[in-house]
């Protein structure tokens, strides 16, 4: 391009709009061409304040560290002892979040069970019911009780080690789901009592209760059916964490699963994923505050999820008051989702490894989020389980490394005082001081 026009006047540098970016423009063109909003899987992709904005200070003269590999740093957690006679004992505080058979293949669900069991933790069913391979390979299996009640029956309910009443998920607080027809195989259709090949809507709210008073009665019913043996969790999205946690505890929950907007979904509208809900970092302190105000912190366990990726994230969640975390997207990546070795196939689908999120279309090159028999063959559940176990072990070792450096002999002993924030936003959300100061926005008795 010439730097001047034919009259000798310089061209200005072409300037792309920050408002109408290439991403935005491609969304507009896609909408104009199709007339349909974009549906995708996964969680929020936008950058939000996160655990990356927090740092541990480590030990110093006032705090002394524990010896790595030598001095004990416990990672175990017991969930659900408040009302249940058989609470869940986990070796590590990293659980596998609910993901449906239907969204995932049977072998992928099996791999999650294998990996979780080898690592000493629990896995969770999803919208679509419990499969025998999942139950068979999971030492500790949490049964999700969802609005759709797809595949829901009392026999499976009684096979569960815990029941998780799903009110919402971080990717779409207030939203239901849709499993598109191309993923509805005979087996999926049979489990859901619906014809093959049609879109299956997952309801956004439960068919037989609304509000906290009803929830209390629903929990009573589930306990009566399961003999008050297994813990009952309530899963809520990061919408109004202080009030949601308060109401769930009041309704009788043994544990709360709290899911931030980075938490994934099998499929929902992109606009929902990116614009409804709060970041994981923003929801933990109000939730812990609610438990503390009720005198229930550490009695009703808090399981935090939504974008947990590493032992550092685990340690930060626990320092801010969580009892455990749950991983979904990270577990799928450990199994082989979005692996660059399939780059050519991702390219053929119009995307690239790492960005692939059209899991609902059932064409997953990694063979994990599909019901296509040929694609499913690519995924080995035994190898997948081993990879997940390795990953869970690494996360645990990482969290222990940090905890020992902070002088803690149990991950639960990590505390907000071990943390500082890199940004004002993170300081305000986590209520820990901005680096180099003794202040965070909103700190009591400060005037600015």
């Amino acid at each position, binding site marked *: 391009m010439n730097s001047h026009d034919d009259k000798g006047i310089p061209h200005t540098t072409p300037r792309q709009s920050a408002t109408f970016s290439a991403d935005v423009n491609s969304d507009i063109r896609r909408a104009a061409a*199709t*007339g*349909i909003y974009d549906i995708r899987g996964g969680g929020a992709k936008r950058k939000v304040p996160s655990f990356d904005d927090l740092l541990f200070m480590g030990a110093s003269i006032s705090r002394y560290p524990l010896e790595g590999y030598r001095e004990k740093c416990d990672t175990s957690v017991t969930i659900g002892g408040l009302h249940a006679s058989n609470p869940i004992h986990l070796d590590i505080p990293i659980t596998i979040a609910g993901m449906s058979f239907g969204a995932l293949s049977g072998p992928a669900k099996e791999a999650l069970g294998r990996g979780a069991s080898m690592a000493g933790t629990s896995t969770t069913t999803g919208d679509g019911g419990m499969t025998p391979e999942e139950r068979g390979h999971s030492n500790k299996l949490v049964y999700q009780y969802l609005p*759709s*009640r797809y595949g*829901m*029956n*009392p026999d499976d*309910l*009684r096979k569960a080690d815990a029941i998780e009443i799903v009110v919402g998920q971080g990717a779409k607080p207030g939203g239901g789901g*849709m499993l*598109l*027809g191309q993923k509805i195989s005979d087996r999926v259709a049979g489990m*859901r*009592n*619906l*014809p093959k*090949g*049609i*879109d299956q*809507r997952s*309801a956004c709210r439960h*068919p*037989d*209760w609304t509000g906290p008073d*009803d929830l209390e*009665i*629903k929990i*009573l*019913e589930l306990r*009566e*059916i*399961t*003999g*008050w043996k297994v813990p009952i969790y309530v899963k809520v999205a990061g919408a109004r964490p202080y009030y949601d946690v308060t109401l769930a505890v009041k309704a009788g929950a043994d544990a709360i699963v709290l899911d931030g907007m980075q938490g994934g979904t099998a499929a929902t509208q992109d606009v929902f994923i990116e614009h409804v809900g709060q970041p994981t970092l923003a929801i933990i302190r109000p939730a812990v505050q609610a438990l503390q105000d009720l005198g229930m912190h550490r009695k009703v366990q808090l399981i935090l999820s939504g974008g947990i990726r590493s032992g550092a994230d685990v340690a930060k969640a626990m320092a801010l008051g969580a009892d455990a975390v749950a991983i979904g997207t990270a577990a799928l990546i450990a199994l082989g989702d979005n692996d660059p070795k399939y780059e050519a196939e991702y390219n053929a689908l119009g995307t690239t490894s790492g960005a692939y999120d059209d899991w609902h279309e059932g064409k997953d090159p990694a063979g994990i989020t599909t019901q296509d028999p040929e694609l499913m063959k690519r995924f080995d559940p035994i190898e997948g389980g081993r990879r997940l176990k390795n990953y869970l072990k690494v996360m645990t070792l990482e969290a222990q490394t940090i905890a020992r450096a902070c002088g803690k002999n149990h991950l639960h002993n990590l505390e907000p005082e071990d943390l500082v924030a890199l940004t004002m936003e993170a300081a305000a959300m986590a209520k820990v001081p901005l680096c180099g100061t003794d202040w965070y926005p909103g700190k009591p008795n400060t005037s600015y």
Partner: protein
Amino acid sequence: MQSFDLEAQGLRALNSTLNAQSTETNQTVWEVTNPKGSHAIAVGLDAPIEVNVKGSTGYYCGGMNKQATIHVHGSAGPGTGENMMSGKIIIEGDASQYLGATAHGGLIVVKGNASSRCGISMKGVNIVVQGNIGHMSAFMGQSGNLVVCGDAGDALGDSCYEARFFVRGSVKSLGADCEKKEMRPEHIEFLREIIAESGVDAKPEEFTRYGSARTLYNFDVDNAGAY
């Protein structure tokens, strides 16, 4: 007959006793006195027993029932027979909202009226109501049959799948994708059998059938205005 005073003996004792009954039990008939609107009465049963509840019940009576016959000699609260798998529930009085929600099988008979969202997300159950049913009944109904001898409220069968609805009286309005259907001989025959089994007062020829128009089965933006 075994008798159980709910007020004196408590809910936990009732349900644990009833849940302990097996297919081979010879204690097949039970009577529950003083229910006084208690919630979660006779839930999760899995034996061919008969439970007679002498009074009105609260939420979720007979929830997730398998095999058992539960007879409520009074009115029943919300979510009665929710997710029932098999067996029978008979309600002498009226039933509150969400009757038979997501129920997979068996038969629920209401001698009085049923409230809103009757048969919501039903997945195979048969529900027979002698009186009227409220609005949004059989919302997202997947399979099974809802037989109404009286009238149906607004938005019957909204967004339904393969469930069938038979209404003898008027339907205030049909929900999205629900339409009037032709009555064929097999429907008359089905009604004849279920009316006899339910003991309600009606003739098969008096009913009109409704069900899914199946236009919303696969997403199409041109249907977005239907919701």
